[in-house]
């Protein structure tokens, strides 16, 4: 039996909602950036870095970054609790899953810090 202790919001209902709110943020961000790239006739470094130097864009990007962290955690939790189970992996499944989640958490954290450095570091 899989307990909810390693899920993101510690309840299915929270995770369900967080997954959708973060999805809407990420879809809006993706469409905005894709639209900007497609609709700007001559996309130079100056135009691009001007866009990302505005506070608005940095906050929007940070929201997307945090949404990625939450969204990926919930999504990968669902994948790991489906496949790294006692039925499929035997008795070591729980240990394996915790190690995998630890590694994924580390990667997610790296992404977040890296992203913040990019946004406020140029």
């Amino acid at each position: 039996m899989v307990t909810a202790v390693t899920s993101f919001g510690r309840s299915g209902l929270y995770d369900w909602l967080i997954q959708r709110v973060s999805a809407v943020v990420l879809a809006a961000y993706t469409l905005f950036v894709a639209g900007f790239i497609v609709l700007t006739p001559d996309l130079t470094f100056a135009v691009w870095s001007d866009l990302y130097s505005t506070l608005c864009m940095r906050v929007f990007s940070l929201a997307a970054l945090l949404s990625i962290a939450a969204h990926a955690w919930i999504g990968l939790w669902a994948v790991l609790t489906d496949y790294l189970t006692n039925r499929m992996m035997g008795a070591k499944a729980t240990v394996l899953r915790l190690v995998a989640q630890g590694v994924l958490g580390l990667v997610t954290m790296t992404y977040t810090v890296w992203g913040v450095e990019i946004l406020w570091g140029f």
Partner: protein
Amino acid sequence: MKKNRPVNLDITTIQLPITAYVSILHRASGVILFAGVAVLLWALDNSLASEEQFSALKESLNNPLCQFIIWGTLAALAYHMVAGIRHLFMDIGIGETLEGGQNGAKIALFVAFIIIALLGAWIW
């Protein structure tokens, strides 16, 4: 709960409907995308670091390996987003029936295919 109760979920013996393929692709594209975030952050990092690195990034779009990695990442993003939007429609009650779900799956596959083809045309 009995721990050794029988489970009949041997996926290789089940003929999967189109909705199942759309679902498993959503999951697979999500896992790929988690690695793809590194590619996207790398690109953003280079695009903002300096004028030279911005040009070098544009230049790398001529390298076949870079083209493939960027296209793969954007393809996963496109599919995952389209399939995700389908989920949001189903959350508000659109396409929840068996037939609606199958139609939604076909539309999602079609739209994602078009976007992925356009991305390919844009990169190559």
